[in-house]
Structures are given as structure tokens and as C-alpha cells.
């Protein structure tokens, strides 16, 4: 959709990670500092791609923005106790996964008010808890999980090394068949080995 934000009636098309598009009002979008910085003055031809986030998350974020269009300008975080019933329902009806996705999307879109309320909500989950209880909230990996993760990484590295060695062996055989000067053969094999090893390591 086009046109710089001259009126709140202007609608923009947003594209999610699934490739789906949906409308958001200009007024709601303007709460996003990221949008303001990127598109406000130049407008957008076609859908605006926020393809790191799924449709449900983006719709939830812009639901909040649409709702707060008529609220006064944001002037710093409010305490959760000061939130309206609508705000509380908005947060309460999200499951944890959605809540985390909303925080990340809100952070990317730089929607100060929503980000701030989300952060305050997390802080609230941590307050009044001892260390053991906090650990449960923030879901730290256990020692066993860390150990298992390390083992998987070690296995991956070993497998990559094995494949690299095999590839080097094959390359060596192939190159030997071709009639190349010795110096050139050594250099070619070395380059191939390095490339393959690096590509496996990166995986």
C-alpha cells in the first residue's frame, strides 16, 4: 500500500513469515518506531515484509497498537496495577509461547509501550521469589541438559571431521588420475580439503 501517513484511514499491508498478508491501519503502524524510520516518509509499494514473525504474533501485536491508537502519548512505563481491564485481558489470554513471540516482535518493531508492559510483566513474575523459584520461571537448562547439548555438539564435530577426511581421500584419488604437474596437484587438493572441512564445520 502506498502514501505516507497523511491520514489514519490509510491501510498498510503486512506480510508475515508464512507469506500471508493482512491490513493494519497507518495510525496503529505509526506506534512502531521501526516502521516510522523505514516507511513513514517514503511510503511502501506492496506489502511490508515483517517475515521474521508469524501471522498470529503480528496480528496480536497490531491488535494492541490498534487498541492504543487513541490513548495519550506514551510517557514511560506504567505499573501493571495501573493497566486497564482490556490490557490485562490482552496479556492474560496469551500462552507463554505467544507472549515471548510478542515481546520479540514488539522489540523488533520498537513499540515502546507494549515492550515496556511485557518487560514489566516478566519482572513481576520474578518478584518475591527465591533463587530456586526464579530458576523455574526463567527456565535455565539443567546440568544434564547442558551435558547432553555438549555431547551432541561433540558428535557433530566428530562426524564433520570424518566426512572431511573421507572427502579429502576421494579428492586425492580423483586428482591422482588426472595428469597434473605435482605442485599444482598438491595445491588443488589442499584447497579442496580446506573448503570441505570449513563447510562441514560450519554445518
Amino acid at each position: 500500500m502506498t502514501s505516507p501517513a497523511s491520514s489514519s484511514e490509510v491501510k498498510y499491508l503486512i506480510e508475515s513469515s508464512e507469506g500471508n498478508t493482512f491490513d493494519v491501519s497507518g495510525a496503529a503502524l505509526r506506534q512502531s518506531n521501526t516502521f516510522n524510520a523505514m516507511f513513514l516518509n517514503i511510503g511502501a509499494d506492496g506489502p511490508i515484509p515483517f517475515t521474521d514473525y508469524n501471522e498470529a504474533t503480528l496480528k496480536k501485536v497490531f491488535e494492541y497498537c490498534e487498541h492504543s491508537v487513541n490513548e495519550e502519548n506514551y510517557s514511560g512505563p506504567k505499573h501493571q496495577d495501573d493497566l486497564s481491564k482490556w490490557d490485562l485481558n490482552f496479556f492474560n489470554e496469551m500462552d507463554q509461547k505467544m507472549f515471548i513471540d510478542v515481546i520479540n516482535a514488539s522489540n523488533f518493531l520498537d513499540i515502546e509501550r507494549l515492550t515496556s508492559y511485557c518487560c514489566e510483566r516478566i519482572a513481576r513474575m520474578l518478584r518475591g521469589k527465591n533463587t530456586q523459584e526464579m530458576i523455574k520461571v526463567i527456565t535455565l537448562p539443567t546440568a544434564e541438559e547442558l551435558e547432553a547439548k555438549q555431547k551432541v555438539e561433540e558428535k557433530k564435530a566428530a562426524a564433520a571431521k570424518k566426512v572431511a577426511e573421507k572427502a579429502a581421500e576421494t579428492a586425492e584419488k580423483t586428482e591422482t588420475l588426472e595428469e597434473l604437474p605435482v605442485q599444482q596437484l598438491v595445491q588443488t587438493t589442499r584447497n579442496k580439503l580446506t573448503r570441505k572441512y570449513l563447510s562441514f564445520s560450519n554445518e
Partner: protein
Amino acid sequence: MKFLTFPTLILKDIFENLTLEQLLILSLCSKRTTYAIQAIQSRQLKKVEYIFYKLTSEDQIIVRSNWETFNVKLSTVSLKDNNIIPTELFGMKREVECCSPPSKLAPRYIYIKKDREMIMEKIHDYFYQIFGSTVYYQLESYADGFTPRLKNINCSDIILPNGTSLFDLKTFFNSSPNQEYVRIRGDLNGKLTKNSALFTTEYLDINSSKTHGDDILLAFKGISIRFQDTMFHASTIIWFLNAWKSGKGFHNLKFVSIASIPGRCLDKNKLAENVGIKSLGSPDDTFEVKWIERTNGAVDGNRNWRDRSFNPNQYLIRDNDGEVAFIRVTMFSFDFAVWSALGNPEVIDYIDMYN
């Protein structure tokens, strides 16, 4: 919630919604939370001004910043009563039995009594790591059978348990040299070496009826030293005054107070003869010298000072720079105050007036 996978800005926003106490508890969750808080919220951590280790029968640590004060309570449990689920609190290994059981009140930490010294060291090391060296660390240790070995303490008030080894004390002072204030009560159980870090304390108070204070006075390099009920030889006072008068040491020293010397060893006239102390006219012609004296510990992190004065009738002039020290001697006490450190320096006029 995979908390630590949040972007830094989100973590920062969350941390800013937490009090210092909550941040500390959160930092104890894992090494990674500690690092995250240190990296992202160091500004808030640096606002801590004062940490007070109060080690008595029930240990507690008071942490104070310019807007928040909280207590960390610590209790010991016996081996029989062991309901500790070991965690890695304060950077300790999992094998160390210390944990924070669920509580509706303020969080507290419990540990096995036999590990007390080690656990206090670990906790202090942890605080020092996250709050840094600019904090004023105060220690008050009145606990039985406990000799502190904490590093980089600024102020300590220690009652030495019976049988404290001199080695343990030396270890503590060497770990925390150049303290601002130290008060020691109890038997030192021996003689500290001349280069002990205790002597680099600025303000030192000793109350030790079974100890001779002579070596301590002569090795002292700080500003003020006070002894109470401590044994002394008159010859030590003479040696000290002569050294000061000739400018051979004690350049920083401004105040000495030795009170209630057992045995009443001092003789005012003998002292005057041996050192060249001058009198201010007749014994009744006295005036008051005043100063602010550093006294025990600190209150809420503010150093504790009190008004102090005495009426000297003798004085001594340092040969090399003409500095004057006012002196009062009785049979069982000795007071010494350097003119340039007094709160009423105009008293110097009395010297001209009486002589």
C-alpha cells in the same frame, strides 16, 4: 521461558523493573545470569555503596545503595537437620551445601555450620566480583569460633574468639590491608610482625587486656591509634615520643590514646625528663584541644565520628618542622594530639601565652 535468549534491550528493560535485591537473587540462578546482569546492568550494580557483614549468632549481610537497603539472612543448620538441596549459589560448587529454601518472608540462605568460614568467603568474593571495589565493605564479627578471612574489607570490628591463632589473624589482615578502621577486642595470642598489614590501618582501636601494646604502637603507620586496658612499658612511650620529636617515623600519626593501662606504669616527670616535653605554665593552666575522632564501625555505611577533647598541660615540638603535639600524661593514661590535625588550631596561641 528461555529468559536469556531475549535480546539485550529486553533484558535491560526487565532488569530495570527489578530492585537490587531481586537482581541479586536472579544473578544467583546461574553463571550466565550473573554475567548477563553484570554486562547489562552494571550501572545499577555500581550504585551499591555499602555492604556490611554482621556475623554474630545469626549472620546477616546488609547491602545498601543510594536508594535501597536490603538484608541477606544466613542461618546454619546441623548435619542431622540437613534438608539442604545443594545449588551453585554465590558461585560455589554444587558440592557445597548451601541453598535458599522457599520462604514467604525475605529470602534466606542456609548452610552447614562447619562450612561457615568458607561460605562467608565465597559470598564475599561473589559480592566483590559483582559490586566491585568501590563499595565500602564493613565486617563485624562477634561470632564464637569464627575468624574471618575476607579479602579487601575496609572496616572491621572483631571480637577474637578464645584460641584464635595469630596466623589466622595475619591472614585476614594481609587479605584486607590498608583498612580505614579496625577495632580488635580479645587476646592476640602472640606478637605481630613489624610488617603486618594491620599497621597500615588508618584508625586502629585495640582492647586487649592480655596483650602488650608496645610493638603495635611502634610499628603503627596510620593516623590514629587507641588502646584500652592494654599493657604498656613506660620506656615504649619514651621511645615513641623521641622518635616522633626527631622526625624518625610516625609522620602520618596524629592521635594516640592509651587508656586504663594495667599497673599504672607512667610517670609524668620522668617522661618529661627523657623526652624534653615542655609544660604550659602551672599544672592548673590548661586549655581544651578538640578534634573529631573516628569511632567504631559505621552506621548505615556512614563512618562513625564523635567529638573528642582533652586538656593538655604539656607539649612537644618536632625538631625538623616545628610541628607541635599536645600531651597529657597520668599514671595510667597517655594522650597525644598533633596540633595541625585539631579542630581548634588556634590553641597554638596558648603556647606563646604561657611561655
